[in-house]
């Protein structure tokens, strides 16, 4: 269950990072937007495992201590934040620029346009990408075993080492991930379909 806990916390943190970064890019905040794009490039072009190794083994050497749990959440948030940023950004970009203009011509302010016109549309558009990210991040939690977490993978590896009942423990592992990921996947496509019918779709 530790996997799930880290997964959920990490994903919530990624959503928060994603929203903040998207806002920075949308409002073209000077300097901060460059920091955001550098962050997105770095985080998207390096593997989670390396990020975790760096946070867990590397950072303590220069005086930044972490525990495996915090390290897992931080690593997942670092990786997921950039993926969420990309998902939200593409959603916002998909909303036609004339929509902004027509809202502006009605006298809406920048924040009002974002809140009442752009955001609701971008949310629906980016939902599939968002859901794919959630599943992707949950899958990535399987990587945590590498940094000595009492995690699903780790338990299985332990069992392999202890009893050499590989088949059983591998089977359990598969079942466990299916138990976690299948409902998420099914729920995702269900909500997606609902949104398409109830919302506007094409």
């Amino acid at each position: 269950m530790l996997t799930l806990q880290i997964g959920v916390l990490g994903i919530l943190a990624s959503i928060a990072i994603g929203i903040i970064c998207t806002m920075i890019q949308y409002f073209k905040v000077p300097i901060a937007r460059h920091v955001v794009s550098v962050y997105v490039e770095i985080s998207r072009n390096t593997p989670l495992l390396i990020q975790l190794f760096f946070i867990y083994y590397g950072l303590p050497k220069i005086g930044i201590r972490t525990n495996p749990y915090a390290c897992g959440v931080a690593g997942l948030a670092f990786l997921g934040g950039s993926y969420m940023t990309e998902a939200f950004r593409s959603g916002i970009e998909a909303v036609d620029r004339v929509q902004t203009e027509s809202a502006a011509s009605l006298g809406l302010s920048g924040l009002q346009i974002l809140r009442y016109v752009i955001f609701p549309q971008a949310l629906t558009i980016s939902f599939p990408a968002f859901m794919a990210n959630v599943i992707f991040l949950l899958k990535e939690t399987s990587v945590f075993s590498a940094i000595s977490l009492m995690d699903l993978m780790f338990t299985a590896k332990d069992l392999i080492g202890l009893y050499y009942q590989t088949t059983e423990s591998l089977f359990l592992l598969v079942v466990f991930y299916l138990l976690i990921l299948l409902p998420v996947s099914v729920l995702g496509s269900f909500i997606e379909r609902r949104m398409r019918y109830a919302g506007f779709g094409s």
Partner: protein
Amino acid sequence: MAEKEMTEVKKGAPLLVVDHLTKRFADLTVLDGISLTVHEGEVIVIVGPSGCGKSTFLRCLNALEDIQGGEILLHGERISQNNKNLTELRQKVGMVFQSYELFPHLNVLDNILLAPTRVQKRKREEVKEEALALLARIGLESKAESFPRQLSGGQKQRVAIIRALCMHPEVMLFDEVTAALDPEMVREVLDVILELANQGKTMLIVTHEMQFARAIADRVIFLNEGDICEEGPPEEFFDHPKTERARQFLQTFTFSRKKS
């Protein structure tokens, strides 16, 4: 200016004054020092070949474009992108776009109510009553709960007009509002605009519908290469264009075939 005043048919108080407006995109000058005074209750139709800057001109009037020279004054207050009161000024200038731009995630009523309730902070019930009355005028009261995707192009465009009207703007801008419509839907939209003209709304209309322009305009502006090339009452412009360029332009709307 004195010469222009003489050609004007209606003479309310000056409402919108454009003075030597210049707009450039990088090196390309799109509007080259345009001056124009719009009086209260006046209907001005802007025509011209594509690329002459008509749409850009309208967009400048709503500060959707930044301008490189001159100024635009509404009741003496400057319209520009750096004006602190920009959103208040925009409320006084309504705009309707070629591509309707209804908000797809809101139904017809919410599309209309969004700006009056959020921007002007008016009571929802009060605006709703007004919106429904206006929808009834154009025969769309049954569509109040529909979403934009369920409407035809002509219906969407009429809703977009109502949406702009509910902000009680002092000037309405129409940017080729029938250009994306099927021919049989053009009429229903133009009829709504005609009715607004009869009610004395001040309007600037960019259109390619010459018949309509002739019927509705108090004054026709012929824009060519970023400047006003010719202006006058519609009968004069359409029947006796003064410039060669305007004659050429008007000829593109007439057809003839040599039959032996």
